[in-house]
């Protein structure tokens, strides 16, 4: 069996880094807890640290739609960059044409804040999805949770969690409703303490034990998102190496627009920077496009938002074969051919 052993299968000796995963709820992974704050035009809302701003337009305000729109825009101008606002929703009565105009106006005025639509509002769901300004689903649960389940079914909202965050507002203290928040893949929950949002962890990273300065490094990543929600942020994976207090980035082309549930792999032959030979600390992190580090469900986060992976040994020995090594070598293809009667 020697010919087909793991050792003979590999084209290069491999570092298999398995970062420790935190399985419990951790703060900072997505929206998590939030608070709905209702506001009428002309009022000043009292914002919580994480607020869904629900703008209530009164029926009489629809009589002068232009003025109401202006009011919306003035309100939006004060809060569209406020980090405490995670999103905005608009509740209004009135005729269809007026409502539609206001919905779009609110979505546009508050952009880039996400515009949330209630799972109960079939008309707005239909309009907002078709016109592309719906960026979040708002789920309000009263004492009758099955009424909310029906709304999901009636309005075909079951799979919207794949496209946008779902915020679930539950009567305070109704902990038994936690199962529904999980069922609906809540990115944030109001009213009860429950795991929401995403929990992304790097589970395994492999690369050759010896690498060349300025050369190619075949790297394979296995990420997991245990959810319950997708990560709807545009993100980018960053790698860097450190030695003697000096950091050097390793360019990598992994920028998922959205991170779904369960597993994700990224396989890339990256180009290492020109650095002095030595043993470096390899660090990884997940960042927003604005450079904000996201909290991962891995241990060992440092102040810059990176996590330690393993050591990386870099020398000056040329290894041109790494550049195309995967053309005829499937690095994850090993499987054992011996069949031990019991685990070794």
């Amino acid at each position, binding site marked *: 069996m020697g010919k087909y052993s*793991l050792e003979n299968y590999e084209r290069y000796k491999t570092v298999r880094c398995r970062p420790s995963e935190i399985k419990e709820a951790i703060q900072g992974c997505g929206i998590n807890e939030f608070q709905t704050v209702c506001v009428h035009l002309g009022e000043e809302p009292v914002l919580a640290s994480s607020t869904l701003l629900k703008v209530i337009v009164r029926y009489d305000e629809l009589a002068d739609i232009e003025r109401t729109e202006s009011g919306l825009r003035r309100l939006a101008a004060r809060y569209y960059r406020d980090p405490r606002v995670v999103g905005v929703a608009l509740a209004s009565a009135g005729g269809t044409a007026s409502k539609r105009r206001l919905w779009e106006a609110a979505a546009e005025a508050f952009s880039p804040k996400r515009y949330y639509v209630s799972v109960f509002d079939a008309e707005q769901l239909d309009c907002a999805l078709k016109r592309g300004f719906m960026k979040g689903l708002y789920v309000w649960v009263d004492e009758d949770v099955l009424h909310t*389940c029906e709304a999901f079914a009636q309005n075909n909202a079951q799979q919207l969690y794949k496209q946008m965050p779902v915020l679930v507002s539950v009567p305070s203290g109704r902990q038994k409703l936690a199962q529904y928040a999980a069922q609906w893949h809540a990115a944030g929950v109001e009213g009860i303490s429950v795991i929401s949002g995403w929990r992304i962890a790097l589970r*395994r990273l492999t690369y050759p034990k010896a690498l060349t300065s300025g050369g190619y490094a075949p790297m394979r990543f*296995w990420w997991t998102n245990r959810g319950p929600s997708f990560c709807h942020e545009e993100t980018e994976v960053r790698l860097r190496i450190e030695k003697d207090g000096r950091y050097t980035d390793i360019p990598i082309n992994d920028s998922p627009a959205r991170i779904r549930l369960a597993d994700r792999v990224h396989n890339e032959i990256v180009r290492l920077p020109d650095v002095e030979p030595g043993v470096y600390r390899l660090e990884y992190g997940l960042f927003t496009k604005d450079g904000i580090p996201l909290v991962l469900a891995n241990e060992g986060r440092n102040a810059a938002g990176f996590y330690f992976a393993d050591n990386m040994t870099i020398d000056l020995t040329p290894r041109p074969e790494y550049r195309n090594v995967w053309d005829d070598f499937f690095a994850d293809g090993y499987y054992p*051919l*011996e069949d031990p009667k*019991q*685990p*070794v």
Partner: protein
Amino acid sequence: MKNWQLITEPKISGALLTNPGIGFIAAPRLMNDHAEVRDNRGSLVRKYKFSPDQKTWNHPDSGLSYAGASWNALEPEESVYDWTVLDEKLEKAKMLGCNAVVRCSPYSLTEDIPAWLRERYPEDPEFPFWRIDPNTTDFAFYWERFVRAFAARYDGHPFISSVDMALCGAWGEGAGSEFVEEKKLDGIIRAYIEGFTVTPLQCLLHDPVSVGAILKYRKNVGFRVDCLGDMGGFHGKEWSHMQDYYPMNIENFNMHDAWEKGTVVFEACWHMNDWYLSGWDIDYIIEESLKWHISSYNGKQTTVPIEWRDAVAKWVKKMGYRFELRRAYAAAENGSLRAKLLWCNTGVAPCYKPYPLLLKLKNAAGEHTFMLSDDIRAWLPDEDHLSVCEFPTDLPQGEYELSVAIDTGVREIGTLNLAIEGRNAEGFYPLGILTLN
């Protein structure tokens, strides 16, 4: 219709359910009366049942069986087929009230290829898990021919849950598929794809080329992997199926969403008792399998350690599909009667068979059964769904008992077990009384 009246919110059941196509593969060896029960290593273990009404000791009951057969038995002479062994196993499944995952294997390490083929190719090839070289012989041609005959006879069989796509390698598990010329595999793949148009298929996740070839032809193929539970039994911390092979290759082979349309089937590496004795983390193993949307698990009919009974019970309750009927309404207006039902699938996989959803109205004068148009295959995990039925307007007036069932159409299997209480002797779930004026 605005005047929907709530009829009932059925009591949700937390019981272990047996249903076709899902759960542990049945363990007839552990059923019925046993003076003593032994584990896979022959050690006597304490007898227990998962619930008092179950038939199987130290193992969950099941609605799913396994029927495997070897090519040498099924085609003893060239182009002469003898399906007896497979028919017998399907009959056994039927007697158990199960359907079955079926696999026909070209050979194994102990079962040879058919004698008539061995005569032509007397030598075993060098690759350890091959009994015949698929590249230098006509294996692919003959195996493809066999698969077409197999499919012609068994596609749509009522007692077959799904079929493993055995391409090559011992037990048909695909060993060495990465070394087989693509055009050789292509014919075998097409034989399965073209032959099984009703019965669901699952492929072995063995190499990107063969899986890619399968997906090229059809997208609703599920997958099977063979060594669930291995946390380092081959190579310690260096490599294991659970932490290296599966997570990477389910993704590498673009099978992340395969579960939405095709079955995901796992077989144990060794036995669950071996995992326990090795000190492996059963919660991790279970959690990963649920993440991958497992429908069924083949534990090789051996015992579940009693220490793991509760964890395994929770696992079985999530495996495959589990349908809760959460609420039922009725409405009567202008002589017409309607019913509306709110469902949720609280399992981790859909049902892959289009079993019909039935509503029955019954009173002393008779009964009327109506098939709804819902396709339950679309009831994905965690989704709420509404079924609405409008009853014919020519129904006689009176009071009726409304009841619901999802029917397999197979008498020996009957209707599905729903995750609600109140199943009656006919396999329906009474919901309440409707009055048609």
